[in-house]
């Protein structure tokens, strides 16, 4: 009698139990589906070229969901992904349950932008907090292109802003019913820049409607690699 109950309990709980597996995520900015290498020149559809010197992005509050309901949440909520530091591009989520959907935010939520000095990836020494005006920079994309009529032909997109309609925090939700234990999240910068005319839009250093639009654009092009 007791044994049957225990077996029934185990069968009931099994789907909800942790698979004992981990989920390893790789966040990779790409061009033409290839990981971006700093300093390498890529071609824009117009024939002009560009190269990237820096890609740094906060990925935060990673969670897993099944049928719309959250089943797992990253115990370490804030990750600063930095192309120049390859080890930061991998995020390990230990002991995950089965999942259908991966969710995360690009950037840092406003609560952290108004509550003073934080540690680790949120420490202002990482250079991702505006010094002259409070608030985190959600992502920085920097490089150069002959199209930019700026000093050294540089483009600098520092996308941030936490207040009101300048709130540039964006959410990403990716479905993957295969629920693998390793996934590459591709951030295709060529798709991101499709609507960007570098002659006219190349320097954003403060919160604005433009910044919000570029943040939304980035969220909309992020995908699971190979899908």
């Amino acid at each position, binding site marked *: 009698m007791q044994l049957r109950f225990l077996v029934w309990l185990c069968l009931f709980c099994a789907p909800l139990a942790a698979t004992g597996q981990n989920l390893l995520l790789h966040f990779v900015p790409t061009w033409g589906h290839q990981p971006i290498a700093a300093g390498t020149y890529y071609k824009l559809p117009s024939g002009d070229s560009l190269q990237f010197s820096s890609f740094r992005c906060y990925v935060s509050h990673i969670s897993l969901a099944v049928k719309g309901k959250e089943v797992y949440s990253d115990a370490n909520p804030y990750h600063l992904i930095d192309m120049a530091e390859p080890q930061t591009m991998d995020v390990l989520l230990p002991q995950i349950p089965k999942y259908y959907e991966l969710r995360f935010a690009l950037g840092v939520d406003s609560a952290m*932008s*108004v*509550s*003073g*000095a*934080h*540690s680790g990836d949120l*420490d*202002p*020494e*990482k*250079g991702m*907090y505006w*010094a*002259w*005006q*409070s*608030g985190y920079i959600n992502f920085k994309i920097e490089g150069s292109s002959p199209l930019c009529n700026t000093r050294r032909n540089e483009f600098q997109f520092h996308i941030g802003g936490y207040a009101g309609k*300048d709130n540039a925090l964006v959410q990403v939700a990716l479905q993957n019913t295969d629920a693998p234990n390793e996934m590459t999240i591709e951030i295709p910068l060529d798709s991101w820049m499709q609507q960007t005319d570098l002659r006219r839009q190349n320097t954003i250093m403060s*919160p*604005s409607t433009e910044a919000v639009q570029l943040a939304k654009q980035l969220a909309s092009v992020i995908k699971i690699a190979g899908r």
Partner: protein
Amino acid sequence: MVITCILLAVGLLAFRTEKPQLAVPKGWPKPVYDFSKNPLTQNKIELGRMLFYDPVLSRDSTISCASCHSQYNAFTHVDHDLSHGIDNRIGTRNSPALMNLAWSKTFMWDGAVNHLDMQALAPITNPLEMDEKLPDVIRKLQRSKRYPALFCKAFGDSVVTGQKLLLSLSQFMLTLVSKNARYDSVMRGTATFTEHEQKGYTLYKTHCSSCHAEPLFTNNSYENNGLYVDNTLNDKGRMAISKQTADSLKFKVPTLRNLKYTYPYMHDGRFKNLGQVLNHYVMGIQHTATLSPHLQRGIYLTNDDKFYLIAFLMTLNDKHYVSNPAYSYPKNNFETSEGL
């Protein structure tokens, strides 16, 4: 048995370490700084004080916080309309006098900074002020002979981080409380105003207290007080931060405490003395769309009124504040045989 317990309890209480607290004067509002995230400790305050006075925070180790915030001038840069920083570069605004910061929600003349912990980032990285980068400051401190041990004393380990630097600076700045002016003694009942000061107090309450409210002598809000726009600076004030046209030409209401030490006045230091300030309020107000509602009808003061008002304002000077050794240059810490 009961007596033993009582004695034991008293004994234990006596051994409890005294943690510094921010003493809130009677009748003052509660501080808005969240101390639960950064509770005061003597070691962190001392570390913050050293950093405040240490020019290592600047690119070429010539400019410290104290360069523009000097204690003898109630922590401002006296006699400079616009402050100067590294390489004799002239800044864009007048250095605010630092005091009673635990009661402010936002910082800088335009409220650009939303938390005291983050304020130091602005002067450290501003090319006109200290022209340094936070990671470089951290590197310098970590390599120094004296700081790793001080960070260890304060935070339990000797790893210097941006967060620890900022939290300790905050702690020192939070201790800068000015509450012992003659006015405060009068409010406490241990002194009385002279006849002139009393008349000035009445005039202050009528004309000034809506923005410069007691006991902090500021309501920490942003107002346009009718200053004409200096077209060599074109400083739009809070609008640059909030992007709202309703905030055009609005600046943070400064405190009226310690005015004797903090001339010249206004965000660009345009008024050298209080006589000029009062003349502005009486005759010089520019009516623009965002002018403070409190100034719409103008302020009428006779010459006698101005005299009495200034007499009252002088009761807000706190000489204990500007000479308190706890806020001064930490001579003992710096002048040891250990170099940087």
